[in-house]
């Protein structure tokens, strides 16, 4: 089933399309209280997203998904970033704050989980959607016209009337559409969606996904979709990247990763999902918890929880290597000879 593939540039799975964003050895350090020291949350992440590609970023809570995404937009003032974020030929980490500000919304936009916290309750929907454009010097009438067009595109019915409505007059799903409209009105080429459907009920979630599907296809919009819902990943994304303890541990086509996950962590994640079409007495749960960023274990950060670990695992950090069409960071897949002596914790 594996097709022969020329070994591509090893920094990333080459998307079959032209890359839009290429992230290279990105690290994010956050300050630790008042002490002046800092902690490395995102620990050298490489990936790229093609033009119009839909990529999901999944992983344990606290693994650094949001900080990675926010780093692409330089949203955290306190974060110290290193590495490269190449967007269409420009290194975003080298831009001045002003240029970066201009790029937000017009090249990269972001939507968050909670639409209400993003909306100003005292401002009309029309003004809020238009604001992104107004900041960039678009005239009032023109901004309103484009706000209307995008609300229309996103299926807000009677959009013209509702331009003058306030957020509280909208349901949760409609608010999420408004937030999406705010993100899309500047015609970005990459949309980062950080758990945009987590707070929505299934039917609304489904509508929002359909909407994202349509918009991304119609506009050739690339989407980086952060979620912990593997059901959403399966239905929406083309590629999935799995993050653990500040690193990407697996990256591949959705179909092949779900059919045959390579990394033990990915295997555990997929096994742990309760399914509507399956009965189980006890859910499989990966034992233990991810390590805090200040106390990452030596070797593979997953080794204390891994049921397939062997000798090298607590010594050497596995690199993210090309394995077939995917990339995997696990010694089981690094092509080196190894005697497998699984340390079974129950000693069997």
């Amino acid at each position, binding site marked *: 089933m594996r097709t022969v593939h020329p070994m591509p540039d090893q920094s990333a799975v080459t998307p079959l399309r032209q890359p839009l964003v290429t992230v290279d050895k990105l690290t994010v350090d956050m300050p630790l209280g008042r002490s002046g020291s800092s902690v490395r949350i995102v620990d050298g992440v490489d990936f790229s997203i093609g033009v119009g590609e839909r990529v999901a970023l999944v992983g344990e*809570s606290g693994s650094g998904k949001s900080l990675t995404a926010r780093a692409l937009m330089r949203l955290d003032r306190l974060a110290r970033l290193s590495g490269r974020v190449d967007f269409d030929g420009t290194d975003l980490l080298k831009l001045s704050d002003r240029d970066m500000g201009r790029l937000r919304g017009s090249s990269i936009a972001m939507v968050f989980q909670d639409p209400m916290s993003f909306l100003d309750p005292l401002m009309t929907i029309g003004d809020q959607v238009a604001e992104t454009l107004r900041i960039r010097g678009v005239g009032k009438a023109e901004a309103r016209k484009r706000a209307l067009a995008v609300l229309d595109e996103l299926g807000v019915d009677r959009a013209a009337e509702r331009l003058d409505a306030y957020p509280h007059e909208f*349901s949760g799903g409609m608010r999420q559409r408004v937030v999406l409209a705010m993100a899309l009105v500047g015609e970005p080429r990459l949309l980062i969606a950080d758990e945009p459907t987590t707070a929505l*009920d299934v039917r609304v979630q489904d509508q929002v996904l*359909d909407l994202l599907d349509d918009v991304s296809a119609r506009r050739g919009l690339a989407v980086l979709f952060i979620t912990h819902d593997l*059901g959403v990943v*399966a*239905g929406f994304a083309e590629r999935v990247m799995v993050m653990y303890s500040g690193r990407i541990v697996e990256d591949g086509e959705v179909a092949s990763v779900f059919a045959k996950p390579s990394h033990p962590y990915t295997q555990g994640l997929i096994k742990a999902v309760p*399914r509507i*079409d399956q009965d189980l007495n006890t859910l499989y*749960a990966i034992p233990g918890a991810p390590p805090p960023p200040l106390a990452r274990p030596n070797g593979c950060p997953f080794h204390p929880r891994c049921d397939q670990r062997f000798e090298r695992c607590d010594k050497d950090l596995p690199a993210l290597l090309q394995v077939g069409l995917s990339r995997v960071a696990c010694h089981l897949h690094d092509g080196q000879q190894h005697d497998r002596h699984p340390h079974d914790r129950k000693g069997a």
Partner: protein
Amino acid sequence: MLMSIDSIAKSYNAFPNPPAKVLHDVTLKVDTGEAIGLVGESGSGKSTIAKCMLALIRPEAGAITYDGIDVIHAKGEDLRRFRREVQMVFQDPYGSLNPRMTVEELIGEGLLIHKLEPTAAARRARVAEMMEMVGLNPNDMDRYTRSFSGGQRQRIAIARALVIRPRILVCDEPVAALDVSVQAQVINLLQDMQRKLNLAIVFVAHDLAVVRHLCERIVVLHKGKVVEQGTREQIFDNPQMPYTQSLLAAVPVPDPVVGRARRAARRLETAN
């Protein structure tokens, strides 16, 4: 029967508009040790029911009884017992934890309020035990919640509710913000608690796969009314109402082939 909710109605003021009625004649029962799921689309009234069950808001009609206590009118010792034995875990792991309190203070607060552990050392030990149980590191006891991720905060909230050993735990979307592996642990934990402590769980969630897994009985709400209720098998294997059927059809399946096919089929259906 541990708790019974009889024909409650609830409206919210919507000044200058007339009050909006969001619950109509809702009746449901909770038995000792059972896990019951409240499902329905956003705005259907799930959280409103949960808040009524916790006596955080008052229905304007109907009755709520908990183990002999008239919840709507309870005072004094009755109210104190009710507040101890019926605990909650909220939807929003960010809003529900005081950022000025350490993890130990947050989790131990109930023990202090209800005078359940006499000494600070005993409280600390209980807090540590609880933290381990919900998958937190007891070494983090002295930290503030600010720097915790969403999932970690929700585990703190659950530890906080369970530490005083309630008889009913009302959970409003408690795992919505958790990633799958922790979600599985938390659900297993809830299930475990349910069995070990004979804890009743009222579980509000929009993730029907999770509800199916955890809850023996399901109540389906639509626009403030109970449209269908039954056992897990009745609701999931043989739903009677079209509304329930449409909810089930929208559940994403973690399988790219099945998931895509289901979504494509549904879109065709809605397009026609």
